[in-house]
């Protein structure tokens, strides 16, 4: 432990920590643009300058190691003057277009301008023109006029994702962010740079002009894209701002998915598949219970299923790796002991998808195989098992290998089949229930319901309760 004083307050810091880190840990705010705890120190924005007693020059606190007895001032006149000067420089060529910028409302530059800047620029010069709507990738746009060249995104591609696909080209005030012209950015982690950007320079094409961020609220959820189970924020329209005249679907829409920092599991990042989670969840839903391909009520479907179960001599269950731990427990308690249980993986890596890397992405493209295996073992189902009834739980199912066995299917999404299931019951998606998954390392990650499920859609746990009764 090292003791130092920040603004006359005695603060304990760890060996090797910087003044900025120690201050932030103790709730002392020092503004910073380029500093990020998971990236190398760039020291280029210069907004974090502080005064060190005994040193003639202000020092960037992000690159200032703590030493015993050090005395730091973060609000002396010269520090405030330097901050105001840096704000003048940073906003010199920054277009004041918060009104049309997606970042407004969660923009560091906007916040700091209010807190640390002077009300007006002292410049009379016209602002520099730089490329707007430059395509970093099919997923990301760059507005170079807004960019403050903090290099967070560049360092991310060098140090975290390892793609090295971004760089700052040219020099002086002609400097700008660019990709290679001949190689569009295909970094599977690219979308992290959108949130990493402290200003509105890097924009999600998917979220572009979709909503002002203050109308939205994040719900903590878990990505189902692979067995890492990264924590995510799923952004829905805040209830206070629900739209009455534009259609209810606007209120039930996921506007974007962003990483939720989770030190145990994914740190501050997720992969692009996670950013697309709402697209995965937004596929065509199964909304109607069916018996042999004909529309039925929930009660009719359940009693038909119950009848089939009672008649079966050798029933089997294929358990979904997208089921939550809580649903798995409900199944075990109600039906599990009455049938042979096999585990199934709903999804495999698709063509072109990264199968596995040593960052976040795992080979198993389902969130809860670990939970399924822990409860039911990992017996894989095969065609020749000789069952006369199969209860299939989960999506992406082909009935063909089931042969003549009766099929009861619980699924969330539509999938065209050669034949009809004997009973088909629509169930909720991860966004429509709360629960937990156990990731490949055995770490449990919880998710919260984002929306209510549609009318006829069932919770799998309830279905098992009624079938087992």
């Amino acid at each position, binding site marked *: 432990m090292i003791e130092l004083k920040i603004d006359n307050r005695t603060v304990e810091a760890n060996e090797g920590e910087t003044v900025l880190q120690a201050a932030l840990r103790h709730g002392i705010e020092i503004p910073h643009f380029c500093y990020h705890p998971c990236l190398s120190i760039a020291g280029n924005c210069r907004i974090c300058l502080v005064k060190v007693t005994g040193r003639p020059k202000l020092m960037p606190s992000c690159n200032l190691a703590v030493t015993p007895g050090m005395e730091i001032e973060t609000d002396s006149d010269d520090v405030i003057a330097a901050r105001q000067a840096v704000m003048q420089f940073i906003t010199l060529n920054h277009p004041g277009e918060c009104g049309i910028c997606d970042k407004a409302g969660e923009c560091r530059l906007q916040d700091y301008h209010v807190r640390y800047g002077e009300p007006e620029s002292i410049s009379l010069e016209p602002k520099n023109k730089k490329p707007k709507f430059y395509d970093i990738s099919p997923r990301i746009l760059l507005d170079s006029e807004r960019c403050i060249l903090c290099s967070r995104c560049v360092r991310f591609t060098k140090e975290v994702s390892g793609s090295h696909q971004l760089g700052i*080209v040219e*020099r002086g005030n002609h400097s700008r962010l660019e990709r*290679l*012209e001949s190689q569009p950015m295909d970094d599977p982690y690219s979308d992290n740079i959108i949130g990493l950007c402290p200003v509105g320079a890097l924009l999600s094409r998917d979220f572009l002009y979709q909503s002002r961020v203050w109308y939205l609220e994040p719900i903590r959820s878990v990505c189902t894209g692979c067995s890492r189970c990264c924590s995510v924020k799923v952004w829905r329209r805040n209830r206070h701002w629900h739209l009455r005249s534009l259609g209810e679907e606007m209120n039930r829409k996921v506007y974007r998915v962003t990483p939720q920092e989770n030190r145990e599991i994914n740190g501050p990042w997720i992969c692009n598949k996670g950013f697309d989670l709402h697209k995965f969840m937004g596929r065509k839903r199964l909304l109607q219970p069916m018996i042999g391909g004909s529309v039925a009520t929930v009660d009719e479907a359940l009693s038909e299923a119950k009848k089939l179960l009672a008649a079966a001599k050798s029933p089997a269950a294929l358990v979904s790796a997208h089921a939550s731990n809580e649903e798995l427990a409900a199944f075990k308690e109600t039906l599990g002991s009455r049938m042979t249980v096999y585990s199934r993986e709903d999804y495999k890596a698709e063509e072109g998808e990264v199968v596995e890397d040593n960052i976040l992405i795992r080979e198993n493209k389902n969130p809860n195989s670990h939970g399924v295996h822990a409860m039911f073992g990992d017996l894989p189902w095969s065609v020749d098992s000789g069952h006369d009834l199969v209860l299939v739980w989960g999506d992406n199912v082909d009935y063909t290998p089931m042969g003549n066995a009766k099929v009861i299917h619980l699924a969330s999404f539509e999938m065209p089949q050669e034949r009809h299931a004997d009973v088909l019951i629509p169930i909720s998606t991860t966004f429509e229930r709360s629960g937990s998954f156990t990731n490949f390392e055995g770490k449990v990650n919880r998710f919260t319901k984002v929306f209510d499920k549609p009318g006829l859609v069932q919770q799998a746990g309830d279905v098992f309760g009624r079938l087992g009764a």
Partner: protein
Amino acid sequence: MSCLTDKFDRLRATYPPEMNSSLVLPLLHLMLREKGHLTESDAIFIADYLGVPAMQVKEALTWYTMLHRKPVGKHVIKVCRNIACSLMGAERIIDYLKQKLGIEAGETTPDGRFTLLLVECLASCGTAPAMQVSDTYHENLDEARIDHILKELS
């Protein structure tokens, strides 16, 4: 390109092997001499040869001012416009060259023979005004000397 990589290999042998990345600028210089100007694909070629990220080489290519990224004429005239040369008549020299070549700074004559560039201090302050034609320094310039130099290049 094989002839080029032979040259690359020879240059590489002059640096300690652990300093592979240091060859970025020397190789860019070498390639510039071969090709006159460089593009992103040249940067990628060097990056692939060295096994360093292409972006590192592209950043360097766009950052160092000696690396031409547009085609230049047979003779590149670089006139110093910094303080000591300015005090000794750089503006007059530049105007004379513009008029004589019929082009503005940054341009190339239609016949592709001359490119006129304005550059910063060439460390010829004691012999100002000065310019470089391709690599060669010409100092203590006046109109007559410029006439002579251009004539020699013809």
